[in-house]
């Protein structure tokens, strides 16, 4: 035996001894004492945990309807998101002073220390490119771009001073829909379907419809389920062709064979679940079943051609086309059938002024034309069906636009456009226990900064959850050892706009 072997033997022995030390009685008692101490401390500090909500997830029936913690006014939500950020200055925010400054150089006081997405150097101020009037009993100022909405403005609560700290589309969209500008958190609709489930077991609880030719910049993450079970993610439906791709059985496969094959797949999945106990397997099983039911229910509810003509006239819908109006009508149909959260994204509001379609005096007007009529019709249609009281309608975007004309790379743009502006923008809510005919918040004379009534994106989320019967601070989900909320660590319910 060489010296080296001896040495090795000793090493092995020492290692064994070290392992044994972990198993001696003394070590056990010593460790236990610490352990008990830690347990006791955990008990003492248990106060931190009392405010969390229990896990609602029932893997065998993840979308079973559930009761909210307190009585909410709203049972469902229709969220209309204008992706690209519409200009508040041509829609909701009346700024006569800005008109007087039109064409003047922007004073340095507004530029110092600010960062813009595209504005460089000294831009010119750009007056409102639409005229404003007061409407309704409430006398809310609205621009000529929203002639129809002005007739129902007394049902609407306008938030004039919403703010965000993100000035690029994707992170700003993530912030308002998931509570963080980064990827990975569940979206608002996922939270809501997780908390309330769905009363219609034949339809998904969270449906997403997009229009305007593109998905929002942040992609499908704005309706993703994050760390919530994936069954709560939004189901994107199309308003043209098959509402859900591949929902029809292929030629030659009848309903019985489909049923038999799904049963067989589920059986295999059930065996897999007994072996690995992964709850996602159960989600998969229920998703197969839902998909099977959806094959019948979805084409029915997604078919707007069966609606009477006067409804088409009211919404300005054209069956067979892919447009925002069709999606709005679909949203009404879905809510009527018990869908919990309908999320609409309309793309094409990014009015930088780089083309006529992106000009605040041309393209924006056309975008407004395409939403004004259907949205107004939606509010009235929900009302006449007795649904507006229990359906919260939210309109908004990821941010607003600057009172300055965009001068990309310091050059004059071919058309009138505005740059991204997160400091202050407008949103509105209606129905679902919201006090109609109110405005909340105020911006300065040119709509640049907030004067009072600041609303953060978290406050919007807190208010939506509140209307559904949730305390946003107590509605949590544990992931990776921490309780998460939609509103992260902020959020105040905007009581001033609640009836």
């Amino acid at each position, binding site marked *: 035996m060489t010296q080296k072997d001896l040495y090795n033997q000793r090493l092995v022995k020492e290692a064994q001894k070290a392992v044994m030390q972990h198993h001696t009685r003394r070590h056990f008692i010593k460790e236990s004492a610490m352990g008990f101490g830690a347990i006791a401390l955990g008990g003492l500090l248990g106060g931190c945990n009392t405010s969390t909500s229990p896990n609602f997830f029932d893997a065998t029936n993840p979308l079973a309807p559930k009761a909210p913690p307190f009585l909410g006014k709203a049972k469902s939500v229709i969220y209309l998101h204008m992706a690209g950020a519409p200009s508040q200055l041509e829609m909701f925010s009346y700024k006569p002073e800005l008109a007087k400054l039109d064409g003047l150089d922007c004073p340095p006081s507004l530029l110092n220390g600010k960062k813009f997405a595209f504005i460089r150097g000294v831009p010119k101020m750009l007056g409102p490119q639409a005229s404003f009037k007061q409407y309704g009993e409430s006398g809310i100022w609205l621009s000529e771009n929203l002639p129809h909405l002005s007739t129902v403005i007394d049902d609407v609560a306008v938030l004039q001073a919403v703010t965000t700290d993100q000035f690029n589309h994707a992170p700003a969209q993530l912030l308002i829909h998931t509570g963080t500008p980064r990827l990975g958190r569940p979206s608002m609709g996922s939270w809501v379907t997780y908390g309330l489930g769905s009363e219609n077991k034949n339809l998904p609880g969270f449906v997403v419809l997009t229009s305007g030719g593109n998905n929002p910049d942040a992609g499908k993450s704005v309706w993703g389920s994050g760390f919530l079970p994936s069954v709560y993610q939004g189901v994107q439906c199309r308003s043209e062709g098959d509402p859900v791709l591949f929902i029809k059985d292929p030629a030659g496969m009848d309903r019985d064979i489909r049923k038999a094959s799904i049963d067989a797949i589920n059986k295999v999945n059930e065996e897999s679940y007994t072996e690995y106990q992964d709850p996602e397997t159960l989600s998969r099983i229920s998703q197969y079943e839902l998909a099977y039911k959806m094959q019948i229910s979805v084409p029915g509810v997604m078919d707007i051609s069966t609606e009477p003509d006067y409804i088409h006239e009211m919404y300005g819908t054209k069956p067979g086309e892919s447009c925002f109006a069709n999606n709005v009508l679909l949203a009404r149909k879905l809510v009527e059938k018990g869908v919990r959260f309908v999320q609409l994204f309309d793309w094409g509001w990014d009015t930088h002024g780089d083309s006529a379609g992106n000009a605040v005096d041309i393209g924006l007007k056309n975008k407004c034309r395409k939403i004004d009529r259907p949205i107004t019709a939606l509010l009235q249609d929900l009302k006449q069906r*007795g649904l507006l009281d229990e359906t919260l309608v939210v309109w908004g975007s990821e941010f607003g636009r600057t009172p300055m004309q965009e001068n990309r790379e310091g050059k004059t743009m071919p058309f009138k456009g505005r740059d991204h502006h997160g400091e202050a923008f407008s949103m509105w809510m209606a129905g679902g226990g919201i006090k109609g005919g109110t405005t909340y918040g105020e911006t300065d004379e040119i709509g640049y900064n907030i004067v009072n009534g600041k609303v953060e994106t978290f406050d919007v989320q807190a208010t939506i959850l509140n209307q559904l019967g949730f305390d946003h601070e107590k509605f949590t989900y544990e992931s990776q050892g921490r309780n998460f909320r939609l509103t992260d660590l902020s959020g105040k319910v905007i009581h001033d706009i609640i009836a």
Partner: protein
Amino acid sequence: MMSVFIGRFHPVFVHLPIGILLFAALLFFASKKQKFAAVSTAVAPALALGSFFSILSCITGYLLSISDAYNEGIVFKHQWLGIATAITSIVCYIAYQKKFKYAGILITLLMTLIIITGHNGGSLTHGEDYLTAPLSNSKSDKKVIANINEAVVYKDVIEPILAAKCYSCHGDSKQKGKLRLDLPNYIMQGGEEGKVLTPFQPGSSELINRLLLATSNEEHMPPKEKPQLSKDEVALLHWWIESGASFTEVVKNTKQTDAIKGVLAAFSTGDATAAEQTQLPAQKVSAISSDLLTELNKQGVAVVPIVNESNYVRANLIGVETLSANTFQLLSKISDQLLQLNASFTTIKDEHLSALSNCKQLKQLELNGTSITNKGLASLAALENLEILSITQTKATAEGISSLTAIKNLKKVFLYNTSFTSAAIAQLKQKIPGLLIDTGGYKLPILVTDTTEAKALEIKTN
């Protein structure tokens, strides 16, 4: 006001002798042991330092007591015990230096004095029951009043609010701003800035105005770090002053708005907020048996509690594949708990509705887009609690009016796309004043902007 300024250092100084003297006592007793004999040298300086600060505490404490309004009884005790503590600490120091045989007893006495005096001081600043409150079994701080209408407004409703949120600074033990709110004569007397309330005029009553200021305002009450009054509590105080700020009036003799009625109703159950009380029936109900629930679920009926842990439920029939008489038999078994029923767009028929007539708790019924007719409506007359009825897109007609007027509590009815004539609507309005009727049929005018696209002006290229 130099004396006040110096007096306010009392909270700073007062903790020094407590700590130092107790530590001195600890050192003293420890030094008796062989093992810690070495610490004995620290006892004397500790006692000396403690004595010095206890004298300082006495002086500042006295200055504070004459500058601010505190409960005289406790102040008296605290003052003299404090002085006794200071003297005892000096005596202890001397006794220790002289190696007095019974110094141990003196130091024990000193410790006792420190504890009692310290407790009294705590009672002065935090209120007398500060220490013991968590032990007393008052988990639900809202008292349940069986019959709120017979309750005395001040004693049963107002006083508990003042006690919970105001007494700690404006009560027996402390009178900030020379104001006491714990007894009727003090309330009416007001504080150093004058009266705090004017009966019948809540708007000009400081008591209300201070509550309504923004929390960031210096004048806001209670101070922002103290527990705030809830919206309901402010409303109750407002209502009390508006109805004359009487100390003897009973609830039923006052004028109450709907909001106040809701808040008051909450007293009779002791839980839930006012808003919930107005929507949930006051009486308790037993839970639906799990067998019955399973059976309803098997049929495809979604049955959900109205709110967490409530036995009252809402049912939705949208998932029922084949609606039969059996479904409604099951529903009538949960008649005590059923508050809302949504049967819109189902194959519900007139005869099914008769099975619902014993669902007396039903508040909301949705029958949109079904084939029900006036015949079915007739069986709804017995639903005395029904408030919201949606029968849009049905075959109901003007003759159905008599059925609707029979529903005594009806508040909202949706009649869009039914054959109700405008004459019938007018009649309905007359029969049930205050009923909200929505007949829908809204039309949007076709505007020029709906059809003309905005176009860019021709840009001259040449």
